[in-house]
């Protein structure tokens, strides 16, 4: 048989179809493998594994060296403190390791009765000694725990932490027996059960810590999967940096029968847009945040996944009260009243944030701050005149700094414009700084006005008002008011909550009238939540107790 040779054309490639075929094979292979009937979330719901976006990679899984909200989300699954969070209300205390507790009359001594069936994830009993050990560890100066000041409520804790006393026995915490922990406090603290819910008050397992190093060694392998021992509803299963932290049900947990989930996977996804896409793709039950420019899209189509809830935080501007022009209280007041908070909330942040009429966010069934700050152009102009400026053009140039982020920039630009329109102030510069540079600038008080935010550690106004005391390490405005300091200190000695709030409200009135800070809005948490997730309630501190969470598929 004779094969006819095909005519040869210059540059003609006979094997071209082969290339095409190869590519077709790849495409088909990909398409067929890619066709899934169930999404990852569907499978996880069936297996009762909760898939959570969790912002940044956790810094650590050791309650004594971390403090961020993302880290404490994981710690809350792994550990249980004396008192813990109620699934429905931020103001109700839920018993944790302590079954019950009582205080003496002036709230300076608290006795926690520990339940006898509390267990570590290796089966060891949880005792009062574990708590004493943990508090010794976090307060030990050699540990240099960055958040140890949370424990300064305990008598002599600060002195011990500052190496002023050597013997931990002098610090106000004792294990009377295995099941009775007695805390003696520096000053009366009626809200102490709220304080001990914070992650810094969690216990650690002594044999585990000491198996991998000394008590005060921060960087040891005890927090690694396989080594980590905890006392919460879940225990650590796996931890891959920047990929996932997996926790699974702790069989020894005293209330294991209440726990519905078999496990939780925490995914650190820094990029908020990636996280939202992962949710749309069925990879997550929950996003840690939803970027503010996507909120309107979800809101418009009434997406049931969209959740917006009040959050215990405030967005505000700090004023440097030690240099002109912000050293003048009337001038600061003028700036405060000229800010149209509602515009910012509606057109920039878009997540149902509340215009802040005070500094401390209001708590349902708790503290409500005085209603002082509001948008009032007339008053603003009046205060500007009082401050000695005929018109806004006389105001010397000053700068607003913020850490680099689009939302901060939009707000700064809007406020710059409001000051210009309402007060006629022309010379406001806005300047962004890289995160750590900004922190250093604020710490050194080398600014005129600086963007700031504060998230409360517990439900009580003192977590917001304490920082404005003279010389507090978080004050950074140079503001000092003896009357404010006096009222704040006085509040600790008032047993009746209503009376106490009244005095704190008086203190906050001073703060808002002197306006070293310009409150802008109170935070909300805006996130996406899959409808399969049950019992996920809106809490002001957003510290959901995972043991009540359940997963139920739609069909």
């Amino acid at each position, binding site marked *: 048989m004779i094969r006819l040779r095909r005519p*040869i054309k210059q*540059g*003609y*490639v*006979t*094997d071209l179809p082969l*290339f095409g075929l190869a590519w077709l094979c790849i495409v088909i292979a*990909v*398409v067929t493998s*890619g066709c*899934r009937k169930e999404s990852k979330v569907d499978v996880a719901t069936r297996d009762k594994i909760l898939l959570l976006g969790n912002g940044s*990679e956790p*810094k*650590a*899984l*050791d309650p004594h*060296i*971390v*403090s961020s909200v993302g880290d404490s989300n994981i710690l809350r699954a792994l550990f249980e403190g004396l008192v813990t969070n109620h699934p429905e209300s931020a103001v109700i205390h839920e018993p944790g390791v302590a079954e019950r507790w009582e205080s003496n009359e002036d709230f300076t001594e608290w006795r926690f009765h520990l339940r006898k069936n509390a267990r570590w994830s290796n089966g060891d009993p949880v005792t009062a000694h574990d708590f004493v050990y943990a508090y010794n560890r976090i307060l030990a*100066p*050699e540990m*240099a*725990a*960055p*958040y*140890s*000041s949370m424990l300064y409520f305990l008598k002599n804790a600060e002195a011990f*932490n*500052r190496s002023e006393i050597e013997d931990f026995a002098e610090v106000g915490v004792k294990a009377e027996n295995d099941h009775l922990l007695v805390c003696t406090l520096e000053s009366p603290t009626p809200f102490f059960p709220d304080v001990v819910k914070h992650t810094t008050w969690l216990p650690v397992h002594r044999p585990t810590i000491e198996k991998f190093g000394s008590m005060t060694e*921060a*960087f*040891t*392998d005890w927090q690694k999967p396989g080594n980590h021992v905890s006392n919460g509803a879940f225990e650590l299963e796996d931890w*891959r*940096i*920047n*990929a*996932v932290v997996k926790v699974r049900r702790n069989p020894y947990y005293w209330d294991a029968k209440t726990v519905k989930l078999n496990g939780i996977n925490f*995914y650190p*996804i*820094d*990029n908020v*847009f*990636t*996280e939202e*896409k*992962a949710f*749309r*793709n069925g*990879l997550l039950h929950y996003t840690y945040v939803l970027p503010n420019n996507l909120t309107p899209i979800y809101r418009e189509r009434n997406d049931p996944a969209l959740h917006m809830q009040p959050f215990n935080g405030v967005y505000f501007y700090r004023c440097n009260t030690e240099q002109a022009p912000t050293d003048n209280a009337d001038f600061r007041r003028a700036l405060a009243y000229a800010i149209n908070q509602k515009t910012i909330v509606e057109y920039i942040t878009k997540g149902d944030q509340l215009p802040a009429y005070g500094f401390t966010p209001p708590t349902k069934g708790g503290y409500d701050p005085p209603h002082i700050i509001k948008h009032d152009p007339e008053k603003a102009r009046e205060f500007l005149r009082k401050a000695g400026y005929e018109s806004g053009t006389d105001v010397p140039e000053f700068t607003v700094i913020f850490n680099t982020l689009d939302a901060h920039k939009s707000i700064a630009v809007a406020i710059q414009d409001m000051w210009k329109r309402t007060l006629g102030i022309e010379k406001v510069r806005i300047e962004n700084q*890289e995160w*750590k*540079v900004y*922190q*250093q600038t604020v*710490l050194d008080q080398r600014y005129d006005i600086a963007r700031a*935010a504060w998230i409360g550690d517990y439900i009580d106004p003192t977590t917001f008002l304490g920082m404005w005391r003279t010389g507090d*390490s*978080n004050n*950074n405005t140079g503001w000092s008011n003896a009357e404010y300091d006096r009222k704040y200190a006085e509040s600790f000695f008032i047993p009746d909550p209503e009376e106490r709030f009244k005095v704190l409200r008086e203190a906050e009135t001073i703060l808002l009238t002197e306006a070293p800070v310009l409150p802008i809005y109170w935070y909300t948490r805006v996130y996406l939540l899959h409808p399969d997730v049950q019992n996920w309630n809106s809490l002001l501190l957003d510290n959901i107790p995972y043991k009540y969470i359940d997963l139920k598929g739609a069909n």
Partner: protein
Amino acid sequence: MEAARYIISRLAQSLFALLCIITITFFLARLAPGGPFLEERAVPPHLMELMNAKYGFDRPLPVQYALYLGSLLKGDLGPSFGNKGFSVNEIIAEGFPISFFLGISGLVIALVIGVPIGIFAATKRNTGVDYSLMTIAMLGICLPTFVIAPLLGELLALKLGWFDVALWEGSTAWFLGALTLGLYYSAYIARLTRGSMLDVLNQDFIRTARAKGVAPVKVLFKHAFRGGISPVVAYLGPALAGLIGGSFVVETVFGLPGLGQHFIKAATNRDYWLINGTVTVFAVLILFTNFLVDVAQAWLDPRTRSRD
């Protein structure tokens, strides 16, 4: 003998460059305002002092530098402050293989796409097909990965559902990452292949082969391909280094836990040892691939050696 001397001198150059990079990084990181222990909530000054003392930051900078070099020689890159509980060695051990895998996959994709397109365009020289392919390649070079990556995610993962859009474990998002990197480099490779293939195709021996009646495919692959592809091979080394080091964007967009993310986060966290560690790894990678390429080229072409 001459070859050995060349290799040794080239190696010495690389080591010197590495020392310079490590030194400059060490001091530059320290010059930046803020520090690893500075947090949004102020840490009381006495604790700040304690922490600085604990990690030796209270000593004079030259002493710290000497100590760092000492531990570096022992292979200890120090602790990480952003990921407490992990040493920089552990972080690199976890992140580098992922970046490496992404880079290699990207390179394979770049070759699989780039080389055939380049050859094809060369055979269709100066036709509409050639122009349009090269225009697309030019576009590919111009479009940054932070544009391509989200587009691929929207299209291939969310619209068509072929891949997962993010995450690493049990997820197919890595392929999108590799594809993004691969597409970018395939454009370079296509243009490079086309150029060198054209060079070869215009040479006399090809004309001779054609005149003898050798089939065009055979001319292309047996006679022209080897010569035409060699510049691409030389480009592979730097390309691989670039792929591995440049994967920060795709790692962020697709939530992949490679080393690129640490590279950026370490700088924003002032995580001194992690900054130094990641820079050292990337520097070694780039120097090593360049060293290999130089040696290979010298071996292939003695002129490079004598010029040195």
